[in-house]
């Protein structure tokens, strides 16, 4: 540690160059991770807020709630652990506002999903043409009491409440009555719901023409969800590997320059572990400094970034990513360590 700190203090410019590289990499990784988490949440926030574990769909719906229709017979008998949920895509249209795509989710007020939804303002729907809207409608200029048309329905819908984190597949959700879902779908008879959701993790439908999935299976089949997540995971992984290479190359060059000095120290009986510890400490100090500055920049970015940008700063996840970068630094520093261990003190004697 002594040697590492002294070298960093003396070689300020060189040390800052490495720290700046680490800052840029860690900042990029933190922002990408936050974006990945933010986007993932915008895909799944609504489902996660419902408190469901299992979801029963039509077996022909390809694990897509929008394509599922269950008759009363298929839905079966519900206990207090199950709830109906009807989902359909809609477009909200109002004067003075741009068209807004949304998912209409019809619920029964006395079932557990509706009870799990926490309102930010307003009240739960009491009539067929009332909706509780995701907060993002506020960002588009809508307020409580505002009206808009949905699909071909001639009667306008009124926003009676707002709720946070009601997004499904990066699209805002409008909660309403289950009967309204039937009306929007043009269903006069037959299906009574899209799915039956259960908070019982052991729930399994037995009716023919139905299939039960876990919440995660439903999430994984959301259009584009897996592609987004994989893209981010790949980008973050590549950045991790790039950081490893940069740290290893920098340290290797620095160590090679110091080999004659290290050889003299070895000749003087300074143990290899002192030199190895100096190399590893130097790497960890530089990377930890870069991570701290990268974190500060990320916090600043988080405080000034517009609300429309889907970033979520998940502290445990970002801490894990930071730890990952630190481990990469440790691995990177092991490459020059091999050279340090092999340094031949005889090489500096004589001339």
């Amino acid at each position, binding site marked *: 540690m002594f040697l590492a700190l002294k070298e960093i203090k003396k070689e300020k410019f060189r040390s800052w160059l490495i720290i700046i590289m680490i800052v840029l990499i860690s900042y990029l990784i933190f922002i990408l991770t936050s974006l990945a988490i933010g986007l993932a949440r915008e895909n799944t926030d609504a489902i996660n807020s419902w408190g469901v574990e299992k979801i029963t769909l039509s077996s022909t719906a390809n694990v897509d709630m929008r394509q599922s229709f269950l008759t009363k017979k298929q839905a079966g008998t519900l206990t207090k652990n199950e709830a109906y949920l009807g989902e359909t895509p809609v477009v909200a249209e109002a004067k003075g506002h741009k068209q807004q795509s949304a998912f209409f989710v019809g619920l029964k007020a006395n079932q557990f999903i509706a009870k799990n939804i926490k309102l930010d303002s307003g009240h739960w729907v009491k009539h067929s043409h009332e909706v509780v809207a995701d907060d993002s409608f506020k960002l588009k200029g809508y307020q409580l009491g505002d009206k808009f048309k949905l699909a071909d329905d001639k009667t306008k819908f009124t926003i009676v409440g707002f709720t946070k984190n009601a997004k499904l597949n990066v699209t805002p959700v409008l909660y309403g009555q289950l009967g309204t879902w039937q009306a929007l779908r043009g269903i006069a008879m037959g299906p009574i719901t899209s799915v039956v959701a259960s908070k019982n993790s052991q729930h399994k439908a037995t009716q023919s023409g139905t299939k039960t999935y876990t919440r995660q299976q439903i999430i994984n089949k959301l259009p584009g969800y897996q592609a987004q997540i994989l893209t981010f995971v790949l980008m973050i992984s590549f950045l991790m590997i790039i950081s490893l290479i940069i740290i290893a190359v920098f340290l290797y060059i620095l160590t090679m320059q110091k080999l004659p000095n290290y050889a003299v120290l070895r000749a003087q009986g300074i143990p290899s572990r002192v030199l190895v510890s100096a190399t590893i400490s130097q790497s960890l100090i530089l990377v930890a400094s870069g991570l701290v500055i990268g974190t500060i920049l990320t916090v600043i970015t988080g405080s000034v970034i517009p609300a429309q940008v889907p970033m979520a700063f998940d502290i445990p996840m970002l801490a894990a990513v930071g730890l990952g970068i630190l481990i990469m630094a440790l691995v990177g520093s092991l490459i020059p360590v091999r050279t340090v261990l092999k340094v031949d003190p005889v090489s500096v004697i*004589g001339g």
Partner: protein
Amino acid sequence: MSSFAVKNVNQIFGTGTAKVHVLHDVNFEAESGTLSLIMGPSGSGKTTLLTIVGGLLTPTSGTVTVNGVDYNHQSKRQRDALRLDEIGFVLQQYHLLPYLTVADQFTLVDKVKPKGNLSRAQLDEVLQALGIQGLLHKYPGELSSGQQQRVAIARALYPNPTIILADEPTAALDSPRVKVVGELFKNLATEHNKAVVIVTHDSRLMAFADQLYEIRDGVLSKQELNRN
């Protein structure tokens, strides 16, 4: 009592047609309280002898004992410890760590070997004798080559070794400084009872030697000292 003894040491590098016999049956003893000078032309084997005496190279045959300890029975780690405790190296290329101030060069020794080093007063005495007492807060890059060499000498003396091995310690010094360094080494031998061995081309150091050896083609022979 002798500080170290080299007995029947042979050193052969390479095999077959590339085989080079660098040292031939070298026998050499350096006693505490004496300054031995080993002189010889380039390629004569004097540096190889120094590395063998310092425990950095294991001879092809023969034994080296330092204060009664045979290198052949020591692990690499034990040899490191022996070098740190008992042997002070002053090298031709002084290679001070460029990012440590002169004071930090001594602090590094304290970190690795907290006990048995020179006291503050003793170090001040050495620094004063070498004329570098005002350079403690300077980095090696801010020093002349002569000043760097004197710092390297002080650095080698700081762990208070019983044996001092010096490889061309006066190569970068002018005559007045050669006299100072020669007197310092002589003083270390006589006043501090150390065994000092200097490998050099510099005949100006002969004035301070107790024993003179010449090495030619790997054969070491004792010479008469002619101080004139």
